């Protein structure tokens, strides 16, 4: 039984903090594209783009 608990819940429990961090992570793909554009062309408000990062 111990092995089954370790393989199932004992493994799953390690994923919960990762999920919480993921929900709070501020950088989305759209946000990253705007950052790439700003780095390449200089267009965009740098302060606004880096706020909260």
């Amino acid at each position, binding site marked *: 039984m*111990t092995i089954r608990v370790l393989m199932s819940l004992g*493994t*799953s429990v390690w994923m919960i903090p990762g999920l919480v961090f993921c929900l709070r992570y*501020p950088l989305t793909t759209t946000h990253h594209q705007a950052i790439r554009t700003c780095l390449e062309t200089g267009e965009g408000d740098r302060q606004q*783009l880096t706020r909260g990062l």
Partner: protein
Amino acid sequence: MATVIAPSGAPPEGRAPYSAHCLTWRRLAVAAGFLGLLKSRSVRLLMGMTAFGWAPLGVTTTVSVYFGVHVMGFTEEEASLVMLTWLIAGLAWLPLVSHLTHRWGKKQTYGAFTMSWAFVQSLFLLVDAGDLVLFWVLILINAAGSMAVAVTGWAMLADLTDADQLRTGGTRREGAIYGVGAFAQTGLAAVAILLVGIALSAVGYHGGDDPTPQLS
């Protein structure tokens, strides 16, 4: 007179060698640079995601052999093949992971696959010796979550490097970011495996022993 140290801290060509004192400060500056990275909220969160995405992988690889032998009744060779199958199945999921990453975004893909991985992994609680079909189905589905978390985690580190470059006014620190990421992954995985080892020892599992008589 100051001691000259070479070659690890060698200065650029044509410049005077660094003194030991200067070299110490340079090393301290590098260490401070690593710590400075962690001032960024997004760096801290992504390091947490990277580390906690990898730790379950360490636990699974450790426990799966025990699970195969003592729950499913496989031989040790067959139990080792479980991990190989899992890895190959993970590669088969890559096109879907890539498609969803482009459609939903990396963060959303990471979150969705972690949730599904946690759910599917929990179902191993229901698997018993005779449930071969359920066991292999779970292994095949489970591989998607671990592969997606591994792939999107590293891809997000690349995005974070760009964000960090903009935040720091042009300095690219991909080496430091990937280094801290790898350190966080392996460090937490080591802790997770240590805890699994302690748990296994506590209930009577020792290397090479058949625990059945002690547990029954």
